[in-house]
């Protein structure tokens, strides 16, 4: 990782953070207007405004989180010695921030799944509900360094300690996944629709466990 890349992380973070917060704020205010319109009886306008507000707030908060992480990772990487340590520190930051960003998508997926199981879904809701299936795989793939970037950087991202941390992270995630799957199965015996709605949360919890456990181990081994 070059100095230009490091400076780029910091510059991009500083440039994006404020506009992202403004977008989130505008989204929140639009949500209030939509809610007021709903109360006045303008259901179509109110629902439209609230949907737009949800998307704007979600995008704004996610972008702000990434910008903040980018700024922090730039500063953190400056203090890391050697390219191997820099690449590994950058990966740990990605694995820390992604689960938080995906939490908003999980909530949206659960709401979409709820509407789907009650027979009121459109194309957008199908897509929203399907997203957890993608990131449930993305996070463990990133933990294991199987993604395209990590494969290119294998020389820097793969060593004995990393492999030991990967094993511990995936074991923890597997335990969370099995516990969650058993819970959802039992829930499904009682209320099948609730089980479908709960699945994105289980997938998020398991994927995030892998990601955050790896990041936690890495940070705890920083001396």
């Amino acid at each position, binding site marked *: 990782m070059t100095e230009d890349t490091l400076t780029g992380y910091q510059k991009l973070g500083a440039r994006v953070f404020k506009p992202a917060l403004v977008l989130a704020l505008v989204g929140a205010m639009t949500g209030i207007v939509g809610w007021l319109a709903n109360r006045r009886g303008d259901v179509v306008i109110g629902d439209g405004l609230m949907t737009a507000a949800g998307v704007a707030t979600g995008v704004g908060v996610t972008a702000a989180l990434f910008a903040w992480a980018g700024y922090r990772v730039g500063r953190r990487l400056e203090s890391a*010695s*050697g390219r*191997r340590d820099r690449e590994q520190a950058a990966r740990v930051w990605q694995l820390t921030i992604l689960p938080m960003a995906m939490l908003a998508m999980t909530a949206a997926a659960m709401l979409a799944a709820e509407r789907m199981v009650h027979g009121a879904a459109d194309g957008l809701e199908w897509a929203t509900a399907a997203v957890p299936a993608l990131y449930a795989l993305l996070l463990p793939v990133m933990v294991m360094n199987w993604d395209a970037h990590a494969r290119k950087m294998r020389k820097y991202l793969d060593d004995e*300690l990393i492999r030991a941390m990967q094993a*511990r992270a995936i074991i923890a995630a597997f335990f969370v996944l099995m516990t969650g799957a058993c819970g959802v199965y039992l829930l499904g015996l009682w209320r099948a629709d609730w089980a479908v709605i709960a699945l994105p949360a289980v997938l998020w919890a398991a994927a995030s466990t892998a990601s955050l456990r790896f990041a936690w181990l890495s940070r705890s081994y920083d001396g």
Partner: protein
Amino acid sequence: MGDARLGSHLKEVRTAAGLTQAELAERAGVSRKTINTVENGVFTPSTTLALLLARTLGVTVEELFFLQD
């Protein structure tokens, strides 16, 4: 990941060689974190890594690691 039976002189040998953790890591082709965890007994290195560290420091593996009583 660590093994309480494994003792290590890595820190002493490294400092005697006048190397920082980062310098040893760079020479051995591992992360500084790996050196740190091996020195603190948090991580037990494989035979390959132990040999690599010994070769980098110009000592034998037995001079770096030993079994505690």
